[in-house]
């Protein structure tokens, strides 16, 4: 989908994102011709392992460095793949809003994260599809073990990533976090999923 990328967050871009999510929801077995070269697959898996590790360590500035300049961090409210131009998300952040989110958490006045939620991010069942020579789509189930001020919890679902190779390094262009119960009442999700 990134062969001719639309202006980020234009209506064309939303349409492309909507199509991408639909393709993930309709995906059967991954076609042979879209299986990644082993070295690319391993590099992408390393990126996602590092992402989880940085989140769990609370190193959000380092975590942000893993994202592209035109990235999106997307936490929908629906479990049906609705159009982001017409449907509200829990969060739909471009790079700026993602930076603002990290800056807010660093103010010392973000009472929703006082103390910060501790997390362990687990990813399993990684599936990868090439998206042009320098793009990779990754689908994975996630389980996040949380502890907020002594209250133990979990978040679960699947994440759809769009990764892009820039100057020889893989970076996150899209992280769509599909909570399996996104349409049902949610506890404090102001930590970073």
């Amino acid at each position: 989908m990134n062969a001719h990328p639309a202006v980020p967050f234009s209506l064309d871009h939303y349409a492309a994102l909507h199509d991408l999510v639909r393709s993930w929801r309709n995906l059967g077995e991954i076609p042979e011709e879209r299986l990644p070269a082993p070295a690319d697959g391993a590099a992408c898996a390393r990126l996602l392992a590092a992402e989880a590790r940085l989140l769990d360590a609370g190193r959000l500035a380092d975590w942000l460095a893993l994202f592209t300049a035109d990235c999106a961090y997307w936490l929908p409210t629906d479990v049906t793949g609705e159009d982001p131009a017409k449907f509200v998300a829990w969060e739909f952040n471009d790079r700026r809003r993602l930076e603002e989110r990290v800056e807010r958490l660093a103010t010392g006045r973000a009472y929703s994260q006082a103390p910060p939620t501790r997390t362990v991010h687990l990813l399993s069942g990684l599936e990868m599809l090439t998206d042009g020579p320098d793009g990779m789509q990754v689908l994975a189930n996630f389980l996040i073990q949380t502890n907020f001020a002594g209250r133990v919890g979990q978040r679960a679902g699947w994440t759809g990533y769009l990764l892009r190779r820039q100057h020889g390094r893989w970076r996150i262009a899209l992280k769509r976090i599909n909570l399996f119960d996104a349409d049902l009442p949610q506890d404090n999700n102001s930590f970073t999923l």
Partner: protein
Amino acid sequence: MTVAMARTTAGVYDRLFRPGQVHRDLYVDPQLFELEMRDLFGRTWVYVGHETEIPKPNDFVTRNLGRRPIILCRTTAGEIAVLINRCPHRGAVVCRSARGNAGGFTCGYHAWSFANDGRCAGLPLRHAYGEGFRLRDHDMARPARVASYRGFVFASMIADVPPLDEHLAGARRYIDQWLDRDDRKPVLVNNGVMRFRTHANWKTVYDNAGDGYHPPFSHESMLRVFAARYGDVDMKYFTADVDDSAMEAIDLGNGHTMLDQRPAMHAVSAWERQHVMPGREILEQRLFERFGAERGRQMLDASTGSGMNLNIFPNLLIIGNQVQRVDPLAVDETVIDWFSTSLAGAPDEINAARMRLQEDFPSFGEVDDSANFEACQAGLALVPELEWVDISRHLTTGRGRRGADGLWHEPVTSDRHMRAYFEAWKALMDAGSAARLREGGGR
């Protein structure tokens, strides 16, 4: 219950109130919560949903009415109906889907089936109920009253309530103003819901909705980030002595209130005050190309936050561009449903901008509010020796006044909001306990 006790029941809740203070039991007593579900949510107009959530015949959503499971549906004939979602046979919840489109509902237990206006349509092996059995004696129950004001559907479990228009009192003109921004394109409540669970009493949510004192403190993290990046934007106007501003708190009657930020937010251009959100530049550019800068900005101003906190007791909050339903689940557990809105017939760019704008405050501000609700709940629940909560701002300053609109206006940080709704709370709860005594229901 003895006659002597019954005589004093009219004042049973007096102990919970002192001038400028309310008792912690209002927030932490599980028995009092049960009574609220009976005598408050069971005896007044409660907000159910908006007609645009169910646009087509046979559309339905399931909700709660003070915990009672209900179905809000548009019947096959196109009428709005509210059903108690309980089978008249054995009491099972009939419809177990959050939303859908169905001409009727069938109970999963013994397959009693009902049309979507609640009429009993049939049941298996009817002969065993004998000769006198009539289907019409086995319809699904409905609240005693259902009425809409400009698409907002309310229901009451008892018939003896004032007409909805009268109940809404001073809130009606503000509902009109909220709906009739710009060129009055119809507001649709059909663009997704954020369902926040907070481990706090439902009244902590209602308290906060009319609290013009907390923003610079509770939301310091958000205000600080946006001010550092963009300067004088958003609600930065709250970081001064706002009681000297043109913003105000207005008592609309019957526990409804309005916190009016429009004099600050919409003084020049709400869109220009709004810090950037995803797609701001490209959506603005496309609109200006199509409609010109002046008209484009008008349209964007009318889709930026409304600058209104319109609080309709007990469970409807119209804030910014969202409609919130406050849903009490237990004395210390509440779900706040934030329904997003769009404009029918508006350019797609406007509605895309509305989606991104409506994600801003929830993830940067509501999360801190919710954490503070939970902190209040913890402090109130865990310290029985300290019984009182302060609601006294501007009780003695003499700065309230009767406006030309006949409504009572106070400085924006006033606690008049809480004093006003607790007065409505007490009137309803007193009437409810008196009614149950008359009916012999006891506690």
